């Protein structure tokens, strides 16, 4: 009985591909701007808009000032970073020179590009792993009830409350016992455990994967794995993207854990490497490191800002972030 709808959809699909079908304007689900009550109804004057826009602009300046500073100063020599005004350019223009230093082991304490690779590796393994596990676990908790599932879920909730700072040192001491210090798994494994992710995916599956759909598929004789991969997983994609985004940011920004568990600078992620450079530049007389700290910081934030701009609709809707609150 699905054939008719499939056929209709099929012809619709081909028609659109041929360009004959009038392209419907997709209503952006995450931005219900169309639903806004006109401001006159609140009894506000038009001038209010101008004033409030200016206020927003001021806060935007506050928000962007450090970003502007880091962009401007990544083009400066070490002397100019200190001697010229921070919010304007100065000659000579040494952006490319500074950038090339990121590929060298300047002070013998590590190469930026290697740290970049480490961070990317940890983010992909940790973030990807956390998302995969959140998908399985969230689906399992939402759509199966098995012995002990309630207790296990309470454990997940309890894990939400355990502060990272408090768990890091015990982790370190555990690693010392099982030889995971200076091992990338010491960084990746804890990053893959994401109670927030599991919790969010459970909530998301409850809302977006109808129980009836799964039951119907079971009646048709589909296996559980097939149901999960072919039916449930595609429906879970928006939620998974949010979890992926959050966990990648989490790994990318993590400082305390790698700071404690890594003592070899070839394993450092960017955060620890930049922290080390900042410390050496300031306290060990390696002032030539200052331009590296600046350009390194800039190059660190570019991938993440790009990622956020590309995946805007996932965080903009506050989709899952907001659902925690309910």
């Amino acid at each position, binding site marked *: 009985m699905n054939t008719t709808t499939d056929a209709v959809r099929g012809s619709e699909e081909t028609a659109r591909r041929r360009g004959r079908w009038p392209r419907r304007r997709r209503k952006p689900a995450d931005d219900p701007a169309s639903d806004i*009550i006109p401001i006159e109804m609140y009894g506000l004057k038009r001038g209010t808009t101008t004033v409030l826009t200016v206020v927003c602009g001021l806060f935007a300046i506050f928000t962007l000032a450090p970003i502007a500073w880091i962009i401007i100063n990544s083009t400066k020599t070490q002397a100019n970073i200190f001697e010229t005004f921070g919010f304007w350019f100065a000659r000579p223009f040494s952006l490319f020179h500074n950038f090339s230093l990121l590929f060298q082991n300047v002070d013998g304490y590590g190469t930026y590009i290697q740290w970049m690779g480490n961070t990317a590796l940890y983010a992909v393994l940790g973030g990807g792993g956390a998302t995969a596990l959140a998908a399985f676990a969230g689906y399992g908790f939402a759509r199966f009830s098995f012995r002990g599932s309630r207790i296990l879920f309470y454990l997940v909730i309890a894990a939400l409350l355990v502060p990272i700072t408090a*768990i890091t040192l015990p982790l370190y001491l555990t690693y010392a016992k099982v030889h995971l210090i200076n091992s990338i798994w010491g960084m990746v494994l804890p990053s893959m455990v994401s109670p927030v992710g599991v919790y969010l995916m459970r909530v998301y599956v409850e809302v977006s994967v109808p129980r009836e759909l799964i039951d119907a598929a079971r009646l048709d004789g589909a296996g559980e794995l097939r149901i999960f991969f072919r039916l449930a997983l595609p429906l879970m994609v928006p939620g998974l993207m949010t979890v992926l985004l959050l966990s990648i940011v989490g790994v990318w920004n993590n400082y305390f854990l790698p700071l404690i568990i890594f003592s070899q600078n070839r394993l450092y992620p960017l955060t620890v490497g930049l922290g080390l450079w900042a410390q050496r530049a300031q306290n060990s007389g390696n002032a030539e490191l200052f331009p590296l700290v600046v350009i390194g910081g800039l190059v660190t934030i570019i991938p993440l800002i790009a990622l956020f701009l590309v995946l805007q609709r996932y965080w903009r809707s506050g989709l899952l972030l907001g659902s925690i609150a309910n």
Partner: protein
Amino acid sequence: MIAPLGYAIYTSLYTTRIIGGTSFSGAANYTATLQSADFWSGVIRVIIYAAFQIPIMLAIAFFFATIFDLGVAKWGTLFRTIFFVPFAVPAVVGAVMWSFLLEPQFGPFVHIANAVGVHNVDFFSSTLMLPSIVVIVIWEWTGYNMVILYTALKSVPRDVVEAAILDDTPLWKIILRVKLPMVRPAIVLLIFLNVIGALQLFTEPLILYYFQPQAISVNYTPAIYIYWTAIGDSEYNLAAAAAVVLGLVIVVISVGSLAFRRRRGEVE
């Protein structure tokens, strides 16, 4: 599915055992932590910090979330994106940038302060250090809080607001008496997350310490105390005890606030 939980449980068993082991060699570590003035002065400092940082940040976040929700400013979408940008900036990089910006000798903000007639400000003096950290953290987290509040405000049913408008309710009353109570769960959640974050304050003061060692003591926050005790002094057992105490303080606050909310019927 069991794997992450299994791993978490496995880890927790190990940690308990290790900590159990340390307390074997003397519960002295816990006594030492509980009696340590260094540890508690850090705790008090982060509580003072939280008392300023969280209300200011939430007020700003709520203000802008309301503006974007009402649509009373132009380019709302653009501004929302801009405000969210710092969330993508690692705390280390954020702290490094602000360290340069606020630097007492050459920092541009000191130049600007001089230019407008405020001379000899030292953002890194012992009195201004904590407010400086408040500013840095507000810079980092306001956008994130704003997005959550904005989403919550968006879910307030339109007819509720329209009914209030028809009743000639003034705008400020609609915001504070109609909308604010309806997004209270989101605000409670944010307070909760921010308090936990504040108690674990670590990265910003540590980076500022690299720039200005005299203004940040080794026990500035509990997390820094744990770090220096473990890595600086190699007193792992004492640091582990401090970590457990800090963890317990946070868990007690979390469970306490949950119990409080449950009693008021806000969560099932």
